[in-house]
């Protein structure tokens, strides 16, 4: 890790790489995040609405449930798991291929700190862009819930909008963004490690890619529990 975060060769090239990675890891993931979040929000709304059978439970709780589910869990953790699959495998296979085709050796022979050059822009870019993806996911998920709920007649527009404004806890946003930062670090660092220390051969690149997804997903689930315990059990 010390090698990864050592001083970059040239600041201008380093920032150029960070912007490239923001585009590659973040902007390119926007499509899948929007699609998944929309349908997650839609399903949460429909399931909550159809499970409220007690007439004493107000239907605006459907909006509240969708909002809090998206903020607390789905937009950070589920999106994190999806990104572990998409971004994690991409990073591991990209760096792994560079390892087996001697591109990393070429960097080292030139006197470049290859770990810093290849990995740190990815970590910084993900830590920067993933919170925005999470916020977009929350917005799209809540919107998806509105569209599906209103179109299916499961909840009225007024009830849903009242619900998503009811008893809003701003700290939940902070909580989910903190989780997102941890998950972004886990996905990029674990995947980059797997790719960087990949053994020779195409088969090994595939294995490192699989390991990257599995290990980062498991760590996301573990840290989800730890962070929830640490961040939501305050007075």
């Amino acid at each position: 890790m010390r090698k990864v975060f050592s001083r970059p060769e040239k600041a201008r090239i380093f920032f150029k790489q960070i912007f490239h990675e923001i585009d590659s890891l973040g902007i390119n993931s926007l499509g899948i995040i929007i699609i998944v979040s929309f349908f997650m929000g839609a399903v949460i709304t429909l399931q909550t609405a159809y499970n409220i059978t007690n007439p004493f439970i107000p239907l605006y709780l459907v909006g509240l449930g969708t909002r809090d589910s998206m903020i607390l869990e789905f937009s950070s953790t589920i999106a994190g798991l999806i990104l572990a699959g998409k971004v994690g495998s991409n990073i591991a296979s990209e760096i792994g291929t560079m390892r087996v085709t001697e591109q990393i050796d070429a960097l080292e022979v030139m006197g470049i700190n290859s770990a810093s050059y290849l990995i740190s822009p990815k970590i910084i870019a993900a830590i920067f862009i993933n919170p925005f993806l999470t916020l977009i996911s929350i917005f799209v998920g809540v919107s998806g819930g509105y569209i599906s709920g209103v179109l299916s007649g499961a909840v009225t527009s007024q009830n849903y909008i009242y619900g998503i404004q009811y008893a809003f806890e701003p700290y939940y946003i902070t909580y989910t963004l903190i989780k997102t930062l941890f998950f972004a670090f886990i996905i990029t660092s674990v995947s980059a490690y797997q790719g960087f220390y990949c053994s020779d051969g195409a088969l090994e690149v595939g294995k490192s890619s699989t390991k990257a997804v599995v290990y980062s997903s498991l760590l996301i689930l573990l840290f989800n529990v730890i962070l929830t315990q640490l961040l939501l059990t305050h007075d």
Partner: protein
Amino acid sequence: MIEVKNISKQFEDGYKVLDNINIVFETGKTNLVIGQSGSGKTVLLKLIVGLYEVDEGSINFDGRNFSTMNFKERKLVRQEFGMLFQGGALFDSLTVIENVMFPLNLFSKLSLSEKLERANFCLKRVDLINKNHFYPSEISGGMKKRVAIARAIALNPKYLFCDEPNSGLDPVTSILIDNLIKEITEEYKITTIVNTHDMNSVMEIGDKVIYIYKGQKWWEGNKTQILNTDNKELNDFVFASELTKIIKSKIN
């Protein structure tokens, strides 16, 4: 000049891949390291450029002990290196011209136009024109090697390392690459080390030839001496093919 003094290397599984190697690679000459696959020549090259660490001994670049240097000190020496890898090791995401400009972008203080001029000069030097905006996946194996040579000479290196420069190339392109390496070595007075098991290369450019056998330096000489040696292991290696056997019988 590169001096390899008493170096040994053992892998974690206990296999001693190189044992007490002493070689002097001379400036302005193409120094060829030959040997069978698995003899240790690639490990030797990786030890010289610092991709592996030596267990014993030292590697000196014009008197500078590279083995005891830290990363920062090595970085300065490495900027005098140019290396041609077996597969070219071009960066897939960069075009031909960007690959050649890569070391210039990182280590030179030239302006963009000067860097472009230098990169174009290097590409012209390896006879590669009108391919500037192609990606490595869009050019042939021989062209990739030539781009890799252009990248290797972009910073005017003092030392050029070539690992199996002819692997996967047809005989005509192999000769072209060999001659290019020799011309560049003589033109820029570079210390060049070429790892190969191609006997055509030995006969084309072998100013100095070192034969590595089972992790040891077995023989040292030049391309003329190699044909008349009575070293059994070297003869078995040099005259392994039917073609070389015919050549030897004609010489005799």
